[in-house]
């Protein structure tokens, strides 16, 4: 066993991404144990704080996806408890988790990101959905991509080809959150780039190219083995691959992220567009970050053990 002491992985939570998080937590625990770390998982529920107070872990690895895990709240609580943890601070997580905010921040740093509008459901109610949607289509054109402003795993997200399909997509989106992000849909090569900081500054992992068999990288395509083809490294010209790596590192830096992140990008015409960033990337069997680590010649357990060591040294 390592000298890290007692390591706790937080997994579960109550968001719709609970199942994914539990799978991430289990895989991370197994990988860490193989790397000699005495790690166990715990859920984020009413038993958590008493358990941490009674037996404080030396360091925590948050692997809760979606709200609570990525919106900064659980990290705020960990800070209150004075327990070191891997990953971004609560403030940085909050900015990154809110997709419109993250887009605005990275755009100010010079990255490209699809043109979009962000609107709460009340706006549609108060001003009339039809008028607002007409204006969106007139301004952004078609196709569009609708997704909750906060959340992940493509839950509530939909690609919209016609104006007639837009109201249904909005309803599906608002089932997962009260604010919608409607983006101009850019057709291109979907890639995702992991960023790891082993203490030498953030470094980009090889980009992973995503080719869903059905054409849509939806929930089923993300978490069902065989429903998506992944190419690691992505089949990109060297200059584009370098631009993608730069974009991921830029996003990581300007959003003030720490230790690890994963940035989703789309490449078209040699240009790289930022879509969103994740501060608690998936670690499941079909998740891309472990694939990227493997492509970089890194072991998931060893790489995450390094992050735990850095966090333990850093303290809270």
């Amino acid at each position, binding site marked *: 066993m390592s000298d890290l002491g007692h390591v706790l992985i937080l997994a579960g939570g109550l968001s719709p991404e*609970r199942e994914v998080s539990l799978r991430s937590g289990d895989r991370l625990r197994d990988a860490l144990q193989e790397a000699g770390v005495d790690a166990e998982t715990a859920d984020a*529920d009413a038993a958590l704080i008493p358990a941490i107070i009674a037996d404080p872990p030396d360091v925590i690895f948050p692997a809760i996806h979606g709200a609570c895990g990525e919106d900064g709240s659980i990290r705020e609580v960990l800070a209150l408890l004075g327990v070191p943890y891997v990953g971004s601070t609560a403030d940085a997580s909050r900015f990154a988790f809110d997709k419109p905010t993250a887009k605005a921040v990275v755009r100010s740093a010079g990255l490209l990101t699809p043109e979009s509008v962000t609107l709460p*459901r009340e706006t549609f109610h108060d001003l009339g959905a039809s008028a607002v949607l007409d204006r969106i289509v007139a301004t952004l054109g078609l196709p569009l991509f609708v997704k909750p402003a906060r959340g992940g795993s493509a*839950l*509530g997200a939909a690609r919209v080809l016609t104006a007639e399909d837009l109201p*249904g997509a909005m*309803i*599906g989106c608002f089932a997962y959150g009260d604010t919608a992000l409607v983006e101009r849909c850019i057709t291109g090569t979907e890639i995702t780039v992991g960023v790891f900081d082993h203490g030498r500054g953030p470094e980009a992992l090889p980009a992973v190219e995503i080719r869903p068999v059905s054409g849509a990288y939806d929930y089923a395509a993300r978490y*069902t083995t065989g429903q998506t083809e992944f190419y690691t490294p992505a089949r990109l010209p060297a200059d584009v691959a370098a631009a993608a790596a730069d974009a991921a590192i830029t996003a990581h830096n300007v959003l003030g992220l720490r230790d690890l992140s994963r940035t989703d990008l789309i490449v078209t015409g040699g240009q790289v567009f930022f879509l969103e960033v994740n501060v608690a990337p998936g670690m499941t069997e079909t998740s891309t970050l472990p694939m990227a680590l493997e492509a970089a010649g890194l072991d998931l357990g060893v790489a995450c053990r390094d992050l735990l060591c850095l966090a333990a040294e850093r303290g809270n």
Partner: protein
Amino acid sequence: MVASEIRALFAVAARPEIVSLAGGMPFIAALPLDAVGEMAGQLVTDRGAVALQYGVAQGDAGLREEICQVMSQEGIRAHPDEVVVTVGSQQALDLITRIFVDPGDVVLAEGPSYVGALGTFTSYEAQVVHVPMDDHGLIPEALEETITRLAAEGRRIKFFYTVPSFHNPAGVTLDAGRRARVLDICQRAGLLVIEDNPYGLLGFDGEPLRALRADDHQGVVYLGTFSKTIAPGLRVGWAAAPPGIRDRLVLAAESAVLCHSSLAQLMVREYLATQPWREQVKVFRELYRERRDAMLESLTALMPGGCRWTRPAGGFYVWLQLPPGVDSKAMLPRAISSRVAYVPGTGFYADGSGADHLRLSYCFPEPDRIREGVRRLAEVVGAEVELRSTFGAAPRPAGPVTSRPAGMTGPAGATVFHNAVSR
């Protein structure tokens, strides 16, 4: 297995923070667990050499005698030789389907129908054709019309699957008059009836209804279970069938599991022989009646206009129709976020329809939790109605489009649930 958003949501629904009106778990805590534990311990001590040994595929003879006594409560006069013990009634359903169904064969079932049965039928590549119900259960005329239509189309119907009492998910019961008509229609068509009756003894009003098999020993296979009257963890169910089918069931059971758990069978046999099981069923009935009342009162007090629901006279479930345009599957994430869970209606139709309904169960949560769950659900439905109103008659964002109205629709577009509560 394909990852699904619905399954992901149910992973959250299992958490104690969520009021789950979704699952159909019996309230086992109401059993005299200390007495059951003592009985089980004694059984192993005294008769462990038998209880832990192989048994015969048809099931323990003494248990089959006890099962005949249980079925007599519903008017069935059966000989123990007619009974095959199975791993819950679900295995009986699987074996029946395995015996009778070839890929492409038609199985008739009520619309909506028990999701576990639909899964079994689908796994054997049966084509499920739904027959509508109303608040008195299956509509006999619709059954007759469906049989006639399918015959004219040259399609082969293998059997009619029905849950006549306290239906899952619809909560309705086939009334006595219709039972005779349904049997007559099936007899004339030469159609085997599979009577699935897990809730028959859990009626809230008066004596148990007479089972279909009580009036047709040759044309009805009866499926029973102790999952609701004792405990589902025992996994003891049975089929009562005519000799020809019984023999094939025994062979199929032998092929599937060699023999059923002797320990579980002897526990049930001992429980029936030594414990006041009829009194315990009354305890369950009263407990579930109280919970049903809590749910119905809360629904009446809280649900927004446009909702309608059934008033079950037994069993575990209320079947709720949502206001026009509201989609139960699409609404589920919002419900989970609001810490309440239900089962979307789409699971109860083989053709993916049913999005305008949802199933609520009242069997497991305490009455106060049921009231809180309904309060949360009412808010969710209200918000969804407002959202639908905002975006107009938007197409449903999830689930296949169906060629006929979803839900319990009559054969000629008849309005159903005439007596159902509506607000």
